[in-house]
């Protein structure tokens, strides 16, 4: 299985994801520099990692979304390729319009790094098929601009397509105090209509062989999805 991890100037979780994909999910991992315009067809997964691309200057993810490599990522996603954006990667995917919505400054206006609980909202996806509906997983967050804002003024999750993870408490309740950044409808991770592009603020790669280890469920979901497809995405 082959995965590509993209490095932008200022990415800083690229190595963490490479390590996790290699050690845990046994991917053959290639790193790509943002200036490249490679053919991505050979990869079963493309990861846009966390960090501070372009220093988060102007707006998190805004400058990176315009990088040459992103044209290729759009093409790849358009062909149904799996694209995962974590933290700053999520911000980049939203800025690149590969995912709906936007990420605004945390409600506290402060950077927040801590473990949070997440409720699994949809398991019929390449990313969550090894999780149970309503299951609670624990991943850390580390961001200053993680407040998800929907494009439409939705009052309930039923109105929003593609929500895979929401912030909740240990028991799975979406309480306001369990929402670390004020995200609309407590949305922590969302996918596109086709479910092949997924972005989330929390860091599964930091919870794979350390901390809760719940990150494994995400990688296992991916592997089982890819294996079911016989490895040709």
């Amino acid at each position, binding site marked *: 299985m082959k995965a590509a991890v993209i490095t932008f*100037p*200022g990415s*800083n*979780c690229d*190595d*963490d994801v490479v*390590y*996790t994909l290699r050690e845990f999910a046994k991917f053959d991992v290639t790193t790509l*520099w943002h*200036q490249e315009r490679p053919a991505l067809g050979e990869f079963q997964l493309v990861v846009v990692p*966390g*960090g*501070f691309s*372009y*220093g*988060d*200057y102007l707006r998190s993810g805004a400058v990176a979304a315009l990088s040459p490599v992103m044209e290729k990522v759009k093409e790849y996603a358009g062909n149904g390729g799996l694209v995962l954006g974590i933290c700053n990667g999520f911000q980049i995917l939203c800025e690149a319009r590969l995912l709906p919505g936007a990420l605004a400054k945390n409600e506290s206006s*402060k*950077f*927040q*790094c*801590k473990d949070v609980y997440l409720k699994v909202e949809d398991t019929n996806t390449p990313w969550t098929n090894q999780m149970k509906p309503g299951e609670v997983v624990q991943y*850390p967050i*580390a961001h*200053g601009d993680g407040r998800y804002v929907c494009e439409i003024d939705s009052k309930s999750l039923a109105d929003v397509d593609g929500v895979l993870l929401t912030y909740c408490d240990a028991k799975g309740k979406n309480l306001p105090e369990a929402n670390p950044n004020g995200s609309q409808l407590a949305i922590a991770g969302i996918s596109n209509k086709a479910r092949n592009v997924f972005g989330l603020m929390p*860091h599964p*790669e*930091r919870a794979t062989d*350390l*901390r809760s280890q719940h990150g494994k469920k995400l990688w296992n979901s991916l592997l089982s999805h890819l294996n079911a497809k016989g490895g040709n995405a």
Partner: protein
Amino acid sequence: MRIPDSQPSTPDMAKSLGVTPDEYHHVCKKLERPPTFAELGIFSAMFSEHCSYKSSKPLLRRFPTTGKRVLQGPGENAGVLDIGNGWAVAFKMESHNHPSYIEPFQGAATGVGGIMRDVFTMGARPIANMNSLCFGSTDLEKTRSVVKGVVKGIGDYGNCVGVPTVAGQTLFHPCYNRNPLVNAFTLGLLKSDEIFRGFASGVGNLVVYVGSKTGRDGVHGASMASKEFSTEAEPDRPTVQVGDPFTEKLLLEATLEAMKAGLIIGIQDMGAAGLTSSSFEMAERAESGLEINLDNVPMRETGMSAFELMLSESQERMLLVCEPDKLEGLTKIFEKWELHSNVIGKVVEGHRVKIEKNGEVVVDLPVELVTVPPMASRPKVVPSDLKQRWFLDRNRLFTSSIEAKLDLVFTDINFASAQPIVHQYDSMVGNRTEGGTFDDAALLRLRDIPGSKSKLALTVDCNPRITWLAPREGGRRSVAEAAVNIAIMGGDPIGITDCLNFGSPENPEVMWQFEEAIEGISEACEALKIPVISGNVSFYNETDGVPIYPTPMIGMAGLVTDTQRVPKTSFASSEQDILLIGPAEGGLGGSVMTSLFFKRECGQPEDTDLNLLNRMLKFCERLRKTKFSYSIHDVSDGGLATAMLEMALHSAVPGIGFTAKIPQGADPDRFLFGETIPRVLVAIDPGHRTEIETLASQAGVGFTLIGETNESGEMKVLQGGLEVAKRPVAAIRTGWENRWKPCFE
């Protein structure tokens, strides 16, 4: 009006730039002419206390700096220790006190940037930051805004570069009201045979400038750091720089990539005194000469003079030396990382630095004249009121109840959850951080070293209250406390860095404190057989003539090799026995309780027993090799009462409570509030108690069964079977969690 770079200087100019008449005389005599104005600028920066160590150098020689792990001791950008398997760690700590008072956010941010550059300059990838912060009274509006800005500055910079901030210390005391301390520590990982150093060697090699363009910012930063603050100081131009963590990250990656490709001979960051210190120091180490043409320095502003270019402290810049045929490869790497680079000079025969601007030689100086400044002679004297400070009125203490004293300690500003600070730092990026961020020391796995199960333990510690009362004991105790913290987390101490924050060296009492603290640190390091591998001195920490409490901050690294467990530092369940390992009583001199009770620090601190310290480390080592689980925490600020409560406050067990029994014959104050080191608390299932007691006996440390955990939700103190104090954990928790929050509103 502007003075031309090449104009001969005058004694008046020297004076206004802070060069003393003696120093100026010395320079003129050696040069056989007055230095040019640009040259004078160079002397003013390099002879400043911050760059020259003119008051401290002879005293720093006292430190033990050798050992079998030492690959690089003091003298380079950072020290390096061998950790086995062909790998090493580089680390150092540095202060950014004065800038952080003037512009807290940028001051602290650029402090973190500077120390990280010092570490990756050695060829090491930074994997952990720590910070140690001392602030004034939170009653002051200014303090609160400084706290908020400093914490945000440290967080934003480290988070952006992607180096986790894994541990630190925060302390509030009015002595820091107008002079907060911001000490930043960075540790990096490297292969032990791939250490880079600041050498400008090889005649004909090129001197390359890389990083941000040079502006006028910070001209005179180094001399600012060496002047006392006066309240009316209103700088007429920005002396604080703006940090650019994004460029720092690019510089980090580009530098490590170029090193790996074998394209770099020597390298140094442009820190304090920018281009001046980097060029002269690199020439000094290599005993070489340099020719530099300032017209090739990338500039952000127009019309900059040589004086300004040489003294600018624009951030995120490096100076390096490469062979001419490597230049193309080097340039390619920098271009890939979107960085400016330029050849600005070359290595030449002889031992002089010659600097040209607009076709005119404006500086031509022998290297040694600049790098070996005349030492300042600083008299020392024992503070005249030391004996008064040592008086502790025990009789008055007896008049107050235990409950009243507990309340004093539990409402102290320094007894607080660090969460409002810690959660602003990314403590996990890099995927190495194990354990919680609230443990006694940080634990990092070394996933980079194939097959290695070793981990690093890191901590920073200092006790300024004790150091003010007894500086030698203060130095000793800071090292001892750090060592206990490392041992608790499963590590053996391997070395320290220090950041010595003191008042004015022109004050003989301060110089006495300084010498004593160094003696104490050295004694403790010798007892532990660990070296001092790097450090930093920050003098002139005072406002309007009142020095801060002497604050010799210790950053310690330990290596965990014989265990995989991550010890718990909070209570794991109810119905466990609590054992106090070490002496049942501790000294009250300089303790938190007595300081609060008498509203000033008083009493003579008791000496740390360094032999006992070693035995305690032995005990911790044996303990971690046992099979059963335990919780462990050391007794420090606030004494046993605080330590027990902390174990409850961090506990996830609902309704956790505990009792503490004052042992028969023990002095209640000394038992509950004494702060002698080492004392360690261990909580275990009762079935394992005798095993622990046996381990303690074998290691030669005393032990006392002092209580047990329960689900009462209360802290109870018993004496002779009677309840003498009771406090609900939940109420204390509320205060503890919220105490620092007002600083961040």
